[in-house]
């Protein structure tokens, strides 16, 4: 994932969801960002974050996609794949 200025629209929206969800405008997403990098990203927050992403992007993730979404990079890849398939 690129720095904010060079992000594509999907990445910008993804970062906006993270910032709003975790109430932290300083969040700069990287592909390697995981649970341990963001304060409050526990399993309860994760399921609510997934719900928020589904609302923002107007889609529903399948079980196998959900199992992959353990880092920002993985979430981004799933979102991009769904966007290109749509």
């Amino acid at each position, binding site marked *: 994932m690129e720095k904010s200025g060079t992000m594509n629209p999907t990445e910008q929206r993804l970062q906006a969801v993270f910032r709003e969800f975790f109430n932290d405008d300083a969040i700069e997403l990287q592909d390697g960002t995981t649970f341990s990098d963001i304060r409050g*990203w*526990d*399993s*309860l927050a994760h*399921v609510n974050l997934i719900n928020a992403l589904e609302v923002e992007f107007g889609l529903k993730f399948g*079980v196998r996609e*959900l*199992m992959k979404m*353990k880092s920002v990079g993985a979430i981004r890849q799933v979102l991009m794949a769904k966007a290109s398939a749509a």
Partner: protein
Amino acid sequence: MSDAARLIARLKRLSWEKVRRRARRTVYHFAEDRIYRVPVEEALEFDEVPEFRFDSWDDLQTYVAGPGESREALLTLWRGRLDAGEHVYTRTENGCLAIYGWMIERQSSCFLTDVRQRMEVPDAPAVTYDFFTAPEFRHRDFYPQLLMHSLRHTAAHVPGIRWIYMCVRADDTVPRWWVERLGAHYCESYFYRRVLWREEKWRG
């Protein structure tokens, strides 16, 4: 340590939040157990995860007890379950039991402890229950992996069943979310409410 000293030490450990929760629970308590089931043909579509083991007493023995827990009491309980023909799925990480979940091949009724009611189930289905992830292994998706693995394995290895049942507390948000996302069919709920000494139990 005298009884008085023990009482003082215990009171010192109590936070106001704990006191408030206990006081509230004394006055009012509510619980909902939600019953779900998965048809065998749908369970067979899930993936088995090779890291999970079946009926491994060796794995169970790597359990590290939490504060205030008796490891011996748990092992005795688990040995009894295995001897009674129940089954367990386990996964260890670095020599420690990371997660486990139990399964009974055929169950016609069971007592739901949270709501203090007996549930009768038709056609003697398989039942999965008592899933637990050790705190240091949470946030790694072991729970949904075990859920899918146990459903698939049970569907493939228990002959003659049509359904696999499971029970989830309504306020157990993460397991409930995964059970519903896996497409388990909601059957009904069992409820318990107590206001002071007045108890109500119902289902619907």
